[in-house]
C-alpha cells in the first residue's frame, strides 16, 4: 500500500525543514480503507524508536506513530547516556543491533568511562550528549530504516477482536484508533507511551495535564487499558531547571575533563565522532545550608513532594535529599546540553518548588550566584501498568499481540527504555511470523535481569538498573555483550545485520584462539620472572606456569606478554579490543568457571516451562498454600526458574509445579515433536568453551 522506503525518505526531507504540516506525514489521503502494517509502535521516545527499528530489522513492515515527528529521539531529561549498569544495557542493545549506542557515538560532547579503577565487570560507559545532535541523528536513522514508516497522530483506542485459539489472553489487538477517528490495522502493537498515560506536570502548587512540558497527555488510551482490566499504578519523577550557560561563573568551580582517548559505546565504532580536545568539560558544585532552608520553609508550596505517589529512591529530588539527609552538602553537576546550546543542566537539582523560589534557591549555590533559570524544574506524575501483567517477551497476558516497553512498565531511564524497546520490537515481529519469542535470560544479560525482575516481582518505584541487581555480574560485562547476545540476535531474532554478526564471530574465534594459546604456553616461574621482570611472579612455585596465569597479574597486559613471547602472542595485540578482552578473560578466569556452573543450574530451571493457561487458584490435584497460589496467579512465571525467584514460593511448591512442566512437555511432544529446550543453553555452552 505504501512505497515504504521512498516514503521514509520523503519524511526525512520534510523534517529537515523543521516545521511540517502533519498531513504530509499521515496517510496521504491516498489509501482507501485503512492502512495495514505488521507492527505498529506507539511512541517515538527511546523505547519506541528502538522497538520500531528492531521490528523493521526483523523484516516486518512497521509504522511508528507519534504525537509529533519532530520529537522523535528527544532526550526529555538528562543530557547524558550510560553510566554504571546503564552502560551495560547500552552495550547489550548494541549487541542486538539497536540504535542508541551508535547514535551516542555520533552525538556525544564528553565521553568518560566510570569505575575505571574498580574492575572491567563494572566499568560504566557514559557520555554527555548534545540533545540536538542526538535527535537529528536518531531521526535520520529512523527515517532511513527500510520497512519503517513514520506517522503523526495521537492514539486514542485499540481495535480488539476475539482471541486466537491456543494462546492465553481474553482478546487480540488488531490495530489502533487515532484521535481523529481514523484507524490503522496491525498484526502486533507496541505501546511505549512514556509518562504520557494520564501525565500530570507539577510545578509548586500548579498542576496541569501533560506528558512532558508542552505536550498533551494520553487520557483515552489510559482509560481503554484500565477498562480492559489492566492493574494501573501511579509513579512520579522530576527534572531539574535549565540554566543559561553565560550566567554561570565556571571559573570558581572544579572542572571534570573527558577521557583521552574516548571509548565508544558501539561494538561497530572504532572511535567517536569528536576528538577529546574538542569535547566539553562538566563542572561540580555543591548545595549548602541556605538551599536546605529555602526548601524546608516552602514545603507547603510544593505539592509534588507531599504526594504519596512513589518516586525513585535513587534519582531523588533535591527536596527529598534535604528531607532524608539534612545538613549535608549535596553534589550538583553542571552538564552541557550541547556544543552550541546556551543551556546547562544542573544534575542533582531536580525540584518542583514554584518557579520564583527555584531561582532563589539556585542563586544560593556557588558559581550559580547570577544564574538565570531558562526553564523551571518540574515534576511528572503518570500511570504505569503493573509489569507482572506482561510476559518476558513483553507481550501482555490480557491482550494478545499487545506489547509494552519503557516507562509504561514502571522503569526509568533512557537505557532501560531502549533495552525493552528492542525486545518488544523483536517479539512483536516474531509473533506476527508465528516464531517462538526471543527471551533474554538473566544469566545472559542485564536486559534479562531487568525484564525478569519486572515480570516476576513488579515494581513500586521507578525501576532503574544497578550492577548490584545482576547476580552474574562478573559474566555480564560490557566487553562481552556481543558474545552473549549477537549470535542469538542473529539466529533466533533476526535483528542483527550480517556485518555485525561477522565481526562478533571474528572476535569470538580470535578470543578462543588467543585463550588456548595463552593456556598452552607454559614455563617455569623462574623463566617467566626473566621474561616479564615487571610482574611480581613468585619463583617459589615449582609447577609450570601458564601464560594465562601471568596475564592475571595486574601489572601485565597483552603487550608486555607479547614482547616476552612474540610467537604466537604478537598477533593478538594487533586489535586493541581483542588484547583488552583477553586480559579481562584472564583476570576473571577462575571465578567465571565457578559462575558458569551456577548459571547452568539456573538455566536448567529456566528450561522447565510451565503451562501458559494454568489456573493456579483453582487447580485441585496439587497441594499449594493459598499464599503461594496467589503469588503464582499474579506473576504467572513461565518457567520453574522464574517461579523459584518469587519470594515465598517454597522448594516444595516448586517440586509440586514440576508435574505441570511434565504435562506441558507431553503436550508439546504431541503437537510439536520433540520438547523445546532453553533457547539460550546452546550459546551458553559455547561461551563456556571460550
Amino acid at each position, binding site marked *: 500500500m505504501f512505497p515504504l522506503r521512498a516514503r521514509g525518505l520523503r519524511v526525512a526531507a520534510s523534517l529537515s525543514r523543521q516545521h511540517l504540516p502533519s498531513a504530509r506525514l499521515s496517510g496521504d489521503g491516498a489509501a482507501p480503507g485503512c492502512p495495514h502494517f505488521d507492527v505498529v509502535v506507539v511512541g517515538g521516545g527511546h523505547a519506541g524508536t528502538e522497538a520500531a527499528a528492531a521490528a523493521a530489522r526483523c523484516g516486518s513492515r512497521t509504522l511508528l506513530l507519534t504525537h509529533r515527528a519532530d520529537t522523535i529521539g528527544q532526550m526529555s531529561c538528562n543530557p547524558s547516556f550510560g553510566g554504571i549498569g546503564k552502560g551495560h544495557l547500552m552495550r547489550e542493545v548494541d549487541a542486538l543491533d539497536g540504535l542508541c549506542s551508535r547514535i551516542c557515538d555520533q552525538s556525544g560532547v564528553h565521553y568518560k568511562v*566510570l569505575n575505571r579503577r574498580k574492575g572491567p565487570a563494572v566499568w560504566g560507559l557514559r557520555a554527555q550528549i548534545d540533545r540536538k545532535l542526538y535527535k537529528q541523528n536518531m531521526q535520520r536513522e529512523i527515517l532511513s530504516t527500510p520497512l519503517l514508516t513514520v506517522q503523526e497522530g495521537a492514539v486514542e483506542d485499540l481495535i480488539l477482536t476475539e482471541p486466537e485459539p491456543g494462546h492465553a489472553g481474553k482478546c487480540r489487538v488488531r490495530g489502533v484508533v487515532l484521535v481523529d477517528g481514523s484507524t490503522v490495522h496491525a498484526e502486533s502493537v507496541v505501546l511505549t507511551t512514556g509518562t504520557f498515560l494520564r501525565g500530570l506536570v507539577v510545578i509548586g502548587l500548579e498542576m496541569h495535564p501533560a506528558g512532558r512540558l508542552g505536550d498533551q497527555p494520553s487520557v483515552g488510551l489510559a482509560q481503554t487499558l484500565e477498562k480492559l482490566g489492566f492493574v494501573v499504578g501511579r509513579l512520579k519523577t522530576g527534572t531539574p531547571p535549565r540554566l543559561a550557560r553565560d550566567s554561570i561563573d565556571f571559573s570558581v568551580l572544579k572542572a571534570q575533563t573527558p577521557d583521552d582517548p574516548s571509548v565508544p559505546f558501539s561494538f561497530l565504532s572504532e572511535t567517536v565522532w569528536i576528538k577529546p580536545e574538542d569535547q566539553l568539560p562538566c563542572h561540580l558544585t555543591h548545595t549548602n545550608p541556605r538551599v536546605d532552608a529555602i526548601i524546608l520553609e516552602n514545603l507547603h508550596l510544593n505539592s509534588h513532594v507531599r504526594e504519596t505517589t512513589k518516586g525513585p529512591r535513587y534519582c531523588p529530588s533535591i527536596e527529598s535529599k534535604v528531607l532524608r539527609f539534612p545538613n549535608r552538602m549535596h553534589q550538583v553537576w553542571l552538564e552541557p546540553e550541547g556544543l552550541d546550546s546556551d543551556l546547562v543542566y544542573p*544534575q542533582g537539582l531536580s525540584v518542583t518548588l514554584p518557579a520564583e523560589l527555584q531561582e532563589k534557591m539556585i542563586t544560593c549555590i556557588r558559581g550559580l550566584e547570577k544564574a538565570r533559570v531558562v526553564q523551571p524544574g518540574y515534576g511528572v506524575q503518570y500511570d504505569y501498568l503493573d509489569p507482572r501483567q506482561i510476559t518476558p517477551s513483553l507481550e501482555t497476558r490480557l491482550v494478545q499481540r499487545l506489547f509494552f516497553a519503557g516507562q509504561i512498565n514502571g522503569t526509568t531511564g533512557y537505557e532501560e527504555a531502549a533495552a525493552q524497546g528492542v525486545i518488544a520490537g523483536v517479539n512483536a515481529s516474531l509473533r506476527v511470523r508465528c516464531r517462538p519469542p526471543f527471551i533474554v535470560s538473566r544469566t545472559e544479560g542485564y536486559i534479562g535481569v531487568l525484564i525478569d525482575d519486572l515480570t516476576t516481582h513488579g515494581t513500586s518505584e521507578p525501576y532503574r538498573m544497578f550492577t*548490584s541487581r545482576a547476580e552474574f555480574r562478573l559474566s555480564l560485562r560490557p566487553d562481552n555483550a556481543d558474545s552473549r547476545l549477537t549470535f542469538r540476535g542473529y539466529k533466533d531474532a533476526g535483528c542483527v545485520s550480517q556485518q555485525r554478526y561477522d565481526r562478533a564471530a571474528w572476535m569470538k574465534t580470535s578470543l578462543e584462539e588467543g585463550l588456548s594459546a595463552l593456556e598452552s604456553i607454559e614455563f617455569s616461574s623462574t623463566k617467566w620472572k626473566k621474561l616479564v621482570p615487571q610482574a611480581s611472579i613468585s619463583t617459589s612455585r615449582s609447577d609450570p606456569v601458564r601464560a594465562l596465569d601471568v596475564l592475571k597479574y595486574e601489572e601485565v597486559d597483552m603487550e608486555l606478554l607479547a614482547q616476552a613471547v612474540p610467537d604466537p602472542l604478537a598477533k593478538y595485540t594487533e586489535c586493541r579490543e581483542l588484547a583488552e578482552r583477553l586480559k579481562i578473560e584472564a*583476570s576473571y578466569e577462575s571465578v567465571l568457571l565457578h559462575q558458569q556452573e551456577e548459571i547452568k543450574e539456573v538455566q536448567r530451571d529456566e528450561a522447565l516451562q510451565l503451562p501458559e493457561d494454568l489456573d493456579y487458584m483453582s487447580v485441585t490435584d496439587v497441594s499449594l498454600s493459598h499464599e503461594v497460589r496467589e503469588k503464582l496467579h499474579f506473576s504467572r512465571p513461565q518457567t520453574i526458574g522464574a517461579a523459584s525467584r518469587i519470594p515465598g514460593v517454597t522448594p*516444595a511448591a516448586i517440586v509440586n509445579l514440576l508435574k505441570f512442566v511434565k504435562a506441558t512437555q507431553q503436550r508439546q511432544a504431541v503437537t510439536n515433536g520433540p520438547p523445546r529446550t532453553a533457547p539460550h543453553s546452546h550459546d551458553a555452552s559455547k561461551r563456556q568453551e571460550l
Partner: protein
Amino acid sequence: MWRKLQILAACRPRSLCTAPGATIFALSSGRGRCGVAVIRTSGPASHQALRSLTAPRALPRARRASLRLLCDPRSGAPLDRALVLWFPGPQSFTGEDCAEFHVHGGPAVVSGVLQALSSVPGLRPAQAGEFTRRAFAHGKLSLPEVEGLADLIHAETEAQRRQALRQLEGELGQLSHSWAETLTKALAHVEAYIDFAEDDNLEEGVLEQADQEVQALEVALGAHLQDARRGQRLRSGVHVVVTGPPNAGKSSLVNLLSQKPVSIVSSEPGTTRDVLETPVDLAGFPVLLSDTAGLREGVGAVEQEGVRRARERLEQADLVLAVLDASDLAAPTSREFLDTVMAPLVSQDPRGSSQRLLLVLNKCDLLPAEGPHPQPWSHPHLLLSCLTREGLDGLLGALRKELAVVCGDPSTGPPLLTRARHRHHLQCCLDALGHYKQAGDLALAAEALRIARRHLTQLTGGGGSEEILDVIFRDFCVGK
C-alpha cells in the same frame, strides 16, 4: 574456594565442564535405628568424591557393590569400611553421575562421611528436593512418580524447616543472624561504592569500614568453627512434644513413657512451667520427649513465658501428643485448647504438613464404666489412664506406627545433616571472606562477599538483592 576451583579446573577434563551444575550430597536413608545408612551424591564431581574417600583405590566397576575403606581425604583418618557403588550417568537415579556410600549407621560415622564429602571440591549439601529435581530434569521420572515424590519432598522440606528452627532458636541462630546482618551491610556498602561512588558523594571511608567489618567477621567465624566441634549438643531423635490444657496429665504421661520421674506431678494446674526434655527409646526409635506447660491464657508472667516456650516447641515437633482430661472435656480450658491448638493442627491439609498428631484422652479411669465414650473431636483418639496404665499398650502401638512413618522418611536425618550443612556453609563463608582481601579488583572483592553472604543466608533465610538496595538507600544519599 577459588583456589580449590582452580585445582578442580586443572584436574578436570574439559569435556566435563559442560556437565551441568554442582555436585550434591545427602543422607538418603531414614534415621530410625538402622544398621546401614546410605549417603548419595549426584553430579559431575561424583567420581571425584568416590575417589577422594576411597583413595588410593580406583573407581569400582559401574553398578557393582564393592567393599572399600573410607578415609577422610584431608586427614587420611579411616572413617568406616563400607559398600560403595558407582553409577555413571545417564544410567542412574538422577541421570547424572552418582555415587552411593552404604556405611554403618552410627551417628559418628555418618557425620564423619558427610563432613568428608563437604571437603571435596565441587561438592555441597543438597537442598530439599534437589535430587528429585535433577532426576526430573533428566527425564528420569514419570508423571505419577513426580506426583508421588512431590509429597515426599514437602515432608522433607518441612522436616528441614523444623530442624533449622531448632538449631536457630539457640545461640547459634542468634549468631548466624547477626553475622548475616553484618555481612549484608558490608556488602551493601561495597555495592554502593561500585554503583554510585563515582559521581555521588558517598561518605569518606565507606570501604575501609567494610574492610574492618569483614575482618571482624572473619575472626568471629574462625573462632566459632574452631569451637563448634565440642560445643553444640546434638539433639538427635524424633521430636515428640506433649501438649494440652493445664492439669490434663501431660507430665504423668511423660513420666510414664520415660519410665522415670522427669517431671514434677501435682494436681495443681500449671505445675510444669518450662520445657523439660528427655531422650527416650520408644518402641525402638530414638525420641526426644518434651514436656511443656499447659496452654492457657491470663496467668502469671512466669507461666506465660512457659506457655510461649510450649507453643514454640510445638512448632518444632515431628509428632504432637495432645493430652486432654477425658472426664473434663467440657471445661473451658479443654474447649479452648481444642479450638485454638487442635483445630489448626487438624485442619491443615494432610499433605500440607508432615507434622503427625496423636490425641490422648487421659484419666479414663474417672469415666463411668458404662455409657458412651467421649467424642471430643473428629480426629481419632486413644483412651488412657496414666494412673492405672489402662490403654498404655494401645498408645505404644499407635506411637510405634507414627514413629515408623516419621523415621521412614528418607533424608530426614536432620540433626547430623543440619550440622553438616551448618559447618559447610560457615566454612565456605569464611573461605570467601578470605578471598575478599586478596581480590584483584573491587568487582571481584564484592563477588567474594556475595558468595559469603549467600552461604550465610542459606542458614538464616533472606538474601535477595533488594535487601542490599534497601541498605544502600537507607545509609547513603545517592542518585541525582
